[in-house]
């Protein structure tokens, strides 16, 4: 992966000047490259990595396995598009293996998610079955430890 993209994934708040120094490039080149990535859709936006459990005590997240019958003319895409239009859906991925679509959804309580599955998801044409798994504790998100940040046990000064 491009070093610039990797650095932005870790910390999107680095300035172009810092990124230029870090990648051994010039500020203008970095700016142009980022523009290009934004333009051709490689960079889709900028967000913070949030400890959701700490930011919002009521947050509930679930991972839902969905089995579907693909349609003859457009495969899984049609059903996927129907599902992803719901604002509650945070991520949606077509998977290999025992089920077809992986849906992550957040809400303010278990009931809200249960109702979404029962009333919205299960009723979509082509959905055969669902299995809902609730997140209990997040340990690592986007490469970052969510709770226990590793402490530096090295001594202050060593030769």
């Amino acid at each position, binding site marked *: 992966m491009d*070093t610039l993209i990797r*650095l932005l994934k870790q*910390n999107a708040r680095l300035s172009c*000047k*810092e990124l230029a*120094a*870090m*990648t*051994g490039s010039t500020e203008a080149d970095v700016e142009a490259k980022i523009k290009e990535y934004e333009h051709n859709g490689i960079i889709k936006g900028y967000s913070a990595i949030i400890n959701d459990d700490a930011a919002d005590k009521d947050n509930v997240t679930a991972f839902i396995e969905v089995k579907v019958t693909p349609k003859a003319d457009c495969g899984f895409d049609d059903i996927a598009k129907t599902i992803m239009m719901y604002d509650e859906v945070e991520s949606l991925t077509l998977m290999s293996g025992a089920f077809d679509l992986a849906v992550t959804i957040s809400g303010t309580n278990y009931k809200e998610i249960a109702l979404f599955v029962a009333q919205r998801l299960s009723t979509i044409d082509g959905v055969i079955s669902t299995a809902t798994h609730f997140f209990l504790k997040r340990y690592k998100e986007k490469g970052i430890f969510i709770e226990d940040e590793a402490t*530096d046990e*090295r*001594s*202050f*000064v*060593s*030769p």
Partner: protein
Amino acid sequence: MMDYDKILSDKCKEIKPSGIRKFFDIAANMEGVISLGVGEPDFPTPWAIRRAAITTLEKGKTIYTANAGLIQLRNSISKYLSRRINIEYDPAKEIVVTVGGSEAIDLAIRAIVNPGDEVLVVEPSFVCYKPIIELMHGVPVVIETKIEDEFRLTAEVLKSKITNKTKMLILPFPNNPTGAVMSRKDLEEIAEVLRGTSIMVLSDEIYSELTYGGRHVSIAEIDGMQERTLVVNGFSKAYAMTGWRLGYLAGPAPVIKQILKIHQFAIMCSPTISQYAAIEAMESCDGEIAKMVNEYNIRRRWLVNALNEIGLECFEPMGAFYVFPSIKSTGLTSQQFCEELLYKHHVAVVPGDAFGECGEGHIRISYAYSLKHLMEAVERISQFLKELK
């Protein structure tokens, strides 16, 4: 009453304590200190290596190994040196596995130096060479490197320091604390001076994997140099394995044979579990090294740029994980600078003179820290510099 002053050996008493001890003591008793002072990687040892150690323990492989180290490990080291540094050593006769690079340095000096022999020590450099030479009743002769020469050893300066008593040259590159490296051309010039002599080179290459402008060149690679060179290397910096205490020494068989006696009587053998883990490191972790080097390089570039921005003039280091900026513009000595920075802004860095007198006017900043940590520390240093004006 025991009079310990009379009991202790004179040589031992004469050894000066390390110049960085004082800072460690102050910093350790202070709240909210952020340090840029350490000389070890911030990465944990790669998991595959740790797994190998756990497996070794599970299998109960907790007995002594051969004095020179497990032959499988020496084979791996031999292959590694051939693969990465392009020098060939016979694992049976030319390699000893040691307790860190430190023991390798100690062994090399002890095996070579007679009382009165002069040993050339390139400075600024790691703190252990001079005391060990002195313990052997040898005479350390300092060769100062200068920022004008990018802290490299030049043939001219080397020539001027050689006498008929010169026994050994200590060549510590990539360098701690300056981050300087020696190019093939630099080394060829040094070799030209040494080839006609019987001077041995102790080439401390512990940072050999951490270079940022092309691969490390060992002086042992240069024509006619392998027979007069002892290569010190180890696992601490390349594989983030400082606490495992494992290094090695490679050199001509007649020297290694003698060195092995000292190692055998003093140490017996290096830790067995570390040795098994090290085989895994050498056989499967080239990719891990690349990842860490890439990360250090990003930090290095950021830090050099940031320090120059805040007004600390910085020579661009091409090796190890240190920068060695000049603080002369502040009018403070290295010691004063470091003390004030620690007291006023709670940032610990190491005064340059801890690595030899010619390090005066500089400080050593380590970038074996996360970017986040470096950014916070540089912000504080910047504040400190503004207050000095």
